[in-house]
């Protein structure tokens, strides 16, 4: 029977009991406003809709075609929630999806049986259904996440291969799995060595890129010691965790705290790390991030390095040990306009926070003397040698 020969008018065959098919899901982190992050089963294909399979409720098919005017599934269309009748075919499809880069951003994969009901378009090798819900899964994630999925969705997770198909990297290829574990251990050892090396080099570093974007807000206004104090207590933390540590109203959004963190970042008193999936944590400069997190560095902050180097040139050319922001701006080839001088001043202030220059010294009584001049520290002299 061809697709064209089937119409909704012919939907008269009723079956009692859900139809059971095979399919796979990506497992993704799932962030929620005001709630702890969790995980979700998600469509495996890039055009799979709906993307997120919510726990404890049916996933309902939708047609994502902009021009369509029908419900989903529809016989002459491709919409509906897909499942294969044959586990081997589903597994082949699953392997193809994994090989096509669909694992990017996923914590892992789930494979297993799915209940289908409602209007169902039966096809030659499977079904496209109106409603669906997972029945029994095999996953390749750590036990903690597998248990979370089992609890959320109320479905058994069977990772021993006895009841459901096995994921290629779970149990089916123990050697490969062991090899991967060994490689991960080796990688962790190398990364640990590199971090140690980085710590040693930091004392000798010529210039560390400014670890924050170059914002337009004035760093002179940042007077917010609560955040560095909280980070000193917690170590690297998400905005959500900081929200709680700071005792902020849990019913309010993190937006306000995010603004405060950005200000701190512009001032150089906190740094931001990101993971490849976009997740973000905050830390004090020098607090090493957990594995897999990268420092957020913005290339627009490169004026900081140029400003410190220009200060060195300005100092050397003047024969004195200090220079004003205006002298540095002119040495850099900028104008002596208020905007340019202020920009240079902000760069040098960030450099001061990171120990390359200083703008004030204490007198013999310990009182701070603000000179209106910039001086290079020992670290700054090394960086500009």
């Amino acid at each position, binding site marked *: *029977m*061809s*697709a064209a020969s*089937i119409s*909704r008018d*012919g*939907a*008269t*065959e*009723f*079956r*009692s*009991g*859900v*139809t059971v098919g095979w*399919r796979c899901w990506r497992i993704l982190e799932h962030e929620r406003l005001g709630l702890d992050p969790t995980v979700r089963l998600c469509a*495996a*294909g890039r055009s*799979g809709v709906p993307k997120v399979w919510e726990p*404890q*409720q*049916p996933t*309902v098919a939708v047609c994502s075609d902009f021009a369509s005017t029908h419900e989903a599934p529809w*016989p*002459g269309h*491709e919409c509906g929630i*897909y499942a*294969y009748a044959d586990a081997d075919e589903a597994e082949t*499809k699953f392997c193809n999806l994994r090989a096509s880069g669909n694992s990017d951003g996923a914590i892992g994969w789930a494979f297993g049986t799915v*209940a*289908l*009901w*409602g*209007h*169902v*378009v*039966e*096809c*030659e*090798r*499977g*079904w*496209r*259904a109106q*409603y669906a*819900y997972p029945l029994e899964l095999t996953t390749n994630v750590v036990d903690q996440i597998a248990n979370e999925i089992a609890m959320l*969705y*109320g*479905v058994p997770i069977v990772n021993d291969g006895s009841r459901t198909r096995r994921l290629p990297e779970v149990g089916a290829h123990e050697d490969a799995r062991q090899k991967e574990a060994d490689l991960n251990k080796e990688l962790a050892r190398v990364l640990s060595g590199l971090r140690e090396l980085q710590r040693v080099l930091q004392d000798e570093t010529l210039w560390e890129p400014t670890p924050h974007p170059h914002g337009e807000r004035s760093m002179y206004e940042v007077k917010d010691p609560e955040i560095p104090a909280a980070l000193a207590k917690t170590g690297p933390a998400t905005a959500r965790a900081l929200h709680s540590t700071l005792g902020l109203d849990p019913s309010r959004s993190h937006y306000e705290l995010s603004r405060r963190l950005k200000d701190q970042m512009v001032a150089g008193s906190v740094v931001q790390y990101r993971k490849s999936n976009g997740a973000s944590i905050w830390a004090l400069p020098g607090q090493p991030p957990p594995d897999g997190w990268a420092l957020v560095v913005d290339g627009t902050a490169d004026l900081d390095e140029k400003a410190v180097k220009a200060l060195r040139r300005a100092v050397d050319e003047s024969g004195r040990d200090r220079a004003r922001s205006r002298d540095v701006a002119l040495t850099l080839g900028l104008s002596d306009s208020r905007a340019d001088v202020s920009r240079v001043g902000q760069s040098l202030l960030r450099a001061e926070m990171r120990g390359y220059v200083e703008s004030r010294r204490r007198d013999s009584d310990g009182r701070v003397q603000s000179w209106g001049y910039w001086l290079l520290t020992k670290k700054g002299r090394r960086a500009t040698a």
Partner: protein
Amino acid sequence: MADLGDPVRIIEVVPRPDELPFPLAPQEAPSVPEREPEEVPA
């Protein structure tokens, strides 16, 4: 997952009670239409 082959038929699948780990809303649980009682010849 676009290689399921051509459509063969359309079916209306009705879940049995307790077949899923959560209760279904009425619109999510289609029911089998009741048959007209057969006429018994007098």
